[in-house]
């Protein structure tokens, strides 16, 4: 009973908690062969990601909007015991996909290492409980397992976020791990061997290219899946709409769904600025330094929603969006400000029915 109450209070529940019914339905009705220690068959994993119906009729909501073949390659990679590298510009659902993959394959998306510039090898290997180490001397009991080691011991997936943010020497400690699938502990003269089902999903941001480039040896141990920006306006609108609805419910914002035309307008602005031309191809535009991914569109909408809920009449308006929009576009004031002003004056101003947005954005600037 107590557990049940906990869930709604978590700010952001894990995927395996949030989509428990779907996962259960897929597991129960799965008849296809599954790799050892996998929760379900590869086919079911793909269904879980892309949506559809479980064999017992349970509706599976889509988690990833985009090409099916990308997800198939990702799942097939993991099924053939190769490590998976999800690459792409920020906001292309890399982390999102990796979380859901882990949830569907291992039933556990919590084994996670966040790559940072200050990370040490311990985070990928193991650390020591120093009090115990001093008291009892080196023993397995004084060993503190890293998430990677836990995953190896339990045959689960480990996720490494932002692999390219880690310094190269730390990255390289993954090489033995991936090729030999063992983790030597020289202090205790033993080695931890991974049990079947263990595998690694890493994400890497292509905007960081060149910061801590993967070494050729490490890169070779990954199959790479490049996640693209959404291909069409409609696809992108769909993504934003769905995520906003989900986030809105978890942030307990007012039930009013963001109006579709606001989402469309926003996505259109983002796409045009990103591609450097208007959607009809008639005008060349400058692109700002920000990525303007779907993820950012989502956060603009949710912040607008929050504004509308707490300070407005609950209905999202141009004024609610303007602040978030301006913030998302202008990341480098010296350059982006001019880009945004030009866009406002030449495109937004001249579009029919966009007067409200033009006025609201001018006020913010």
């Amino acid at each position, binding site marked *: 009973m107590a557990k049940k109450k906990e869930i709604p209070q978590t700010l952001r529940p894990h995927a395996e908690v949030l989509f428990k019914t779907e996962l259960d339905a897929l597991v129960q009705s799965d008849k296809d062969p599954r790799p050892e220690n996998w929760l379900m068959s590869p086919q079911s994993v793909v269904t879980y990601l892309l949506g559809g119906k479980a064999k017992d009729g349970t509706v599976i909501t889509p988690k990833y909007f985009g090409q099916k073949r990308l997800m198939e*390659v990702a799942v097939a990679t993991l099924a053939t015991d190769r490590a998976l590298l999800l690459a792409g510009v920020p906001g292309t659902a890399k982390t999102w996909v990796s979380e859901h993959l882990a949830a569907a394959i291992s039933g556990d998306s919590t084994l996670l290492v966040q790559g940072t510039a200050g990370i040490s090898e311990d985070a990928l290997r193991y650390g020591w409980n120093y009090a115990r180490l001093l008291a009892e001397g080196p023993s397995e009991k004084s060993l503190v397992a890293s998430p990677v080691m836990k995953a190896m011991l339990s045959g689960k997936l480990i996720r490494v976020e932002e692999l390219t943010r880690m310094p190269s020497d730390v990255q390289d400690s993954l090489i033995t791990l991936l090729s030999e699938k063992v983790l030597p502990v020289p202090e205790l003269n033993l080695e931890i061997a991974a049990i079947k089902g263990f595998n690694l999903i890493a994400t890497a941001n292509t905007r960081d290219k060149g910061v801590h480039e993967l070494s050729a040896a490490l890169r070779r141990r990954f199959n790479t899946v490049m996640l693209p920006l959404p291909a069409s306006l409609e696809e992108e609108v769909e993504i934003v709409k769905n995520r906003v609805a989900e986030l809105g419910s978890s942030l307990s914002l007012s039930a009013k769904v963001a109006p579709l035309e606001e989402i469309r307008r926003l996505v259109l602005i983002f796409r045009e600025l990103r591609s450097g031309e208007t959607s009809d191809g008639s005008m060349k535009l400058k692109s700002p330094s920000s990525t303007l991914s779907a993820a950012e569109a989502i956060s603009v909408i949710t912040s607008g929603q929050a504004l509308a809920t707490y300070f407005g009449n609950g209905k999202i308006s141009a004024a609610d969006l303007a602040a978030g929009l301006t913030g998302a576009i202008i990341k480098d004031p010296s350059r982006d400000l001019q880009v945004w002003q030009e866009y406002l004056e030449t495109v937004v101003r001249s579009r029919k029915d966009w007067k409200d947005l033009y006025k609201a954005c001018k006020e913010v600037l």
Partner: protein
Amino acid sequence: MRELKVFGIRHHGPGSARSLRKAIHAFGPDCLLIEGPTDADALIPYVSDDGLVPPVAMLIYDPKDFNWAGYFPFARFSPEWQALKYGLKQGIETRFIDWPMGLSWEMELAARQGRLFNQQLPKRQTWEQDPLKYMAQIAGYEDSERWWDIYFERASNELEVFEVINEMMGALRSELGHGDDSNLWREAHMRKEIRSAVKSGKERIAVVCGAWHAPALEAWEGIPASVDNQVFKGIRKRNTQASWIPWTYERLAVSSGYAAGVESPAWYRMLFDSRKEVTIRFLTKAARLLRQEKLDASSAQVIDAVRLAEGLAAMRGLDLPGIQELRESALSTFCEGATARLKLIDHKLVVGDRVGKVPGNIPQVPLMRDLEKSIKSARLGSEYESSEVLRKQLDLRVPSNRAASVILHRLIALEIPWGTRQNQRAGALGSFQENWRLKWRATFSLKVIEASVFGKTLEEAASNFLLQQAAKTLSLAKLGEITEIALLGELPKILPDIIRHLNQLAARAEDVISMMEALPVLVRVFRYGDVRQTPPADVELLVRQWIPRIALGLPASCTALDMDEARAHFKRIREVDQSIQLLQHPAEEESWNQALQRVAGRQAISPLIQGGTTRICLDRGIESFQQTELRMRFALSVTQEAMQASHWLEGFLFGSGLLVIHQPVIWNILDSWVQALSADRFQEILPLLRRSFSNFPKSERSEIWKLANGKKPELTQSADIINEELEEVVWPMIQLLLGGKSRPESES
């Protein structure tokens, strides 16, 4: 007992070819009838010639009108090719049974003109074009060869496979209809041929045709001969000729526009040759191609890629990976997800660059024979046979080299660009040396055959073709080009005619610009014609008539131009000016000079051209320095629009800044003009100024910098003025003088 089997195949389907080879062998026919036009029958015996290497095509054409021609390409994995090979090897009667092209064109014409069925031929549906692919797609396979593999390849009895296909097609046809009428006519013709084979007493007849036609041919006994004969009543067959021509995988691919083409010839070949390990071979080849592009791709990665491809196939419920799975796994492993890398090799990997070969002993059109003969005598044989891009330097003083140059130019005249001239400068006529880049494409053979309407020899064909072009064109510049190519191709006989056309067209021409474009070419012809021992004919007279006309029209042609047009026109003016200098006719020069002066001083003219002509006038001594100074002050006066002034400067300073450095007056005018500009204006025109100054040699720029800092210029000839382009020209001569010393490394 007589037995007849119909083998329905998929055109260019390797699976089909493999099954067919086995099935025919098992059947053991004494007569082999193949879907293919009967007017190509004469070509069949050459298939056993080992010199004939696919991809090749049968070309069937109307010798009187080359607009009527048809191509029938074969690859090694085409079932028809395998059937032909088998038939010839066994020594059994082997022939084509589809309607002859000569008949099909007449039928098509008749249908188009409404004589026959009062309707146009509709576009074919995909299910008609490639019914087996259609079936595969219904079954959920994007790669129809994979579908064939999985459903048919493992059948123990090869003959049964074809029975199943025939049944399937029968069902498909009763569902979808028979397709357009031409299909029915062709089937009628094929049945006619089957009957005649039966009549001649053959016992075991094998018929190889596209799967779509199989049920209709199987039913030959049920359809009275008179019905089929009725179809062709009253239609007269045209005479055709046929020959083998080399083909390419490129043109076999659907992407080239060949409607019955396949998507991936290179992949199909691999499937045909080594089916069992095709996944491994394909990915190994991908790795090797990547290495050629200097990208990493190790054998370990091939292993990973093979495993991923197989895993993907299993996930998608396929027994074996198809081209989709292979591409995706290559992308994910070797290419690290970067599609650009895959694109680098994709074409070579999937389509391939294989070119077929047709040996010399196979009958060819006379023009082709003449061409090959002259190629041999000009010692271009190895270049002709190579499929690589080759470079060749020709010295026109060597007879065989000169012959080679003539051949290449004549081919260009026929719009067959075997060779392209490298580093070609204006005035190329005056040089003994030619640099060529050569690549013979298989498609050129077709063009040669097409060009053979114009003559039996290369000289005749090129002459007639150029004359026809000259008569058709209304552009003086184009005529100028034709004149030049006629000279380079040593076709002096047609020159008088072309000059006559030039004269007539020029007389009517209102347009100064096209005359200005043609003039430099003509001057080159006149001036250097004798390098090639060709008489300059009446060119000189023509040129002398033209110059005054150009001079008269020049000022009007320089008005109302936007910046890009002005730049282009200024270039034309410079070229005409240089040509006139070459000519050295004082009278014509005088009228041109006057025109330049008028342009330099007139107000309505584009400022860039004004500035440019002012400079030319100064350089040529047409105007005094004082006049130039006056013009400059005027153009750069404070009231003048800054944009206009900077355009004027761009023209005036074109090419060299020495003037600014050596003439303090000019410098002072420029300096005070810049100083008088407001900050905003200055920023606005800065890019334009930069455009003018950045073209100057470095030493000049640094001198100008000194001047701007108030120092005195001290210009000496420094080493970095060396112009690399000029160096290329001068160096061979220096080398000759020095006795073949190697070129010094350029100093930093």
